[in-house]
């Protein structure tokens, strides 16, 4: 059995356009619901939760690219990673803007008090701030210019994702199920990397004879 699956450049372009469109569905729905009175009784809360949720989902999908690529051997998956990461940043930016604008209505005093005082906001804000350099250095030019340091810098994504899940976990009142689900998925994605680092992954890759590419890693 082989998972090998290569695609041509023209196919890739179509696939990427489709992925871009798919990624914008959550936001499109949010805007649509906003115009059709579909955001429920507390629209600001709905917007805050939705943008927060999609930030986490895009972070997890972004972190899923490398494991999936290694397991399947589909090297071209890596070409989607920047777009997914930028979607995560975009959602985080909307989430932060919602907090500043819709929730606090630019009450800078209140915001300045909130950020250090409320641990869940501290963690969320820190994660958002750390995302900024990653978004800024996401261009091909920056990748080239930074060379090896680019990868070092972008390992911040692990910290950011952990911070994002903690942010969610610390804000719920009693029902921790959803944040723990995000935490479990994140744990699996980071755990895979640890195992891969300890060459346990190699053992599994050989064991299940996934693809030549998987063995190369």
């Amino acid at each position: 059995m082989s998972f090998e699956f290569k695609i041509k450049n023209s196919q890739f372009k179509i696939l990427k356009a489709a992925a871009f469109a798919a990624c914008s569905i959550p936001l499109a729905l949010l805007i649509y619901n906003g115009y059709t009175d579909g955001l429920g009784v507390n629209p600001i809360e709905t917007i805050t939760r939705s943008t927060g949720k999609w930030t986490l989902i895009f972070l997890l999908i972004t972190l899923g690219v490398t494991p999936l690529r290694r397991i399947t051997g589909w090297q071209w998956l890596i070409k989607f990673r920047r777009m997914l990461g930028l979607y995560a940043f975009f959602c985080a930016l909307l989430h932060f803007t919602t907090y500043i604008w819709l929730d606090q209505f630019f009450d800078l005093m209140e915001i300045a008090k909130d950020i250090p005082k409320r641990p869940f906001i501290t963690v969320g804000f820190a994660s958002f701030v750390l995302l900024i350099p990653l978004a800024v250095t996401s261009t091909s030019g920056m990748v080239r210019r930074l060379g090896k340091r680019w990868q070092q810098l972008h390992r911040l994504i692990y910290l950011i994702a952990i911070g994002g899940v903690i942010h969610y976990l610390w804000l719920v009142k009693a029902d921790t199920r959803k944040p723990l689900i995000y935490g479990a998925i994140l744990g699996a994605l980071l755990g895979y990397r640890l195992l891969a680092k300890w060459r346990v992954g190699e053992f599994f890759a050989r064991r299940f004879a996934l693809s030549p590419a998987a063995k190369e890693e």
Partner: protein
Amino acid sequence: MLIRNAPDIKSSEITDKSLYLSRRKFLLAGSASLASLAAGAAPAWLSGVDEAYAGTKLPGVQKSRLSTGEPLNSFKDITTYNNFYEFGTDKDDPAQYAKTLVTRPWTVAVEGEVKRPKIYGIDELMKLSPLEERIYRLRCVEAWSMVIPWVGFPLSALIKRVEPTSKAKYVEFLTLHDPKQMPGQRRGVLEWPYVEGLRMDEAAHPLAILAVGLYGEVLPNQNGAPLRLVVPWKYGFKSIKSIVKIRFVENQPATSWMKANPSEYGFYSNVNPDVDHPRWSQARERRIPEFTKRKTLMFNGYGDQVAQLYSGMDLRKYI
């Protein structure tokens, strides 16, 4: 929504109680077998059975001078945005899942340190005292608020009826515990059954009511049918829903939220803009559906009536 369609029904048109009860039994038995087939996708005519009762207009409801004149939240606001963890922790869960709650017949056991303990039927309780409309502000601990036209009667009327002994220092309330009817209880989000409590003088305060209706009609399930507490100067979670037991006790009851997180939820839980929730500010609130937040008032604006209950108490300590 089904609830809205039955405001002017004549009493002669209302199905006889014994008839609808037996009909409901039949439907419930049917729905149990159907549910296994349809995986919970009960048809609307089936799930609407209890709501049909919930929409019934309550006769002879008197106005009260204790009502606020502020603009009311809509029926939709009040019945689709609820915290009622027995039916799930999302705000729209109760509206969606509370249909499984059977509110008739329903009994409330009043017991403990009283001279006249009794198990009341819900219809008997509703005749205990003239029903009044009480338009109250409700301030949730999550920093949002609404203005709600409850229908109910003073809790003090029940207290007088059962004659508490000198040992009765607190009143403890319990919600129904039945995971079959309350699917949220299948997970241990809180310790079930939900428990709340008041000090005796708080319970006897004229503002504290037992509510049986909303907007002049029988209370919808998601709002705590058939009987709930409303204590407008305290955070919303103190106003326990779907009560089956009221116990008069000597010691301060351990409430569900205190057990879940004692540093965040105290026994008193009076609305207090000066004492923040450890994780968020309580200084302001969003009055649904307003865009910007407004200042939260001490005791939710009921300070003139209730502040004396707490004179000499450090409200930073007794949260």
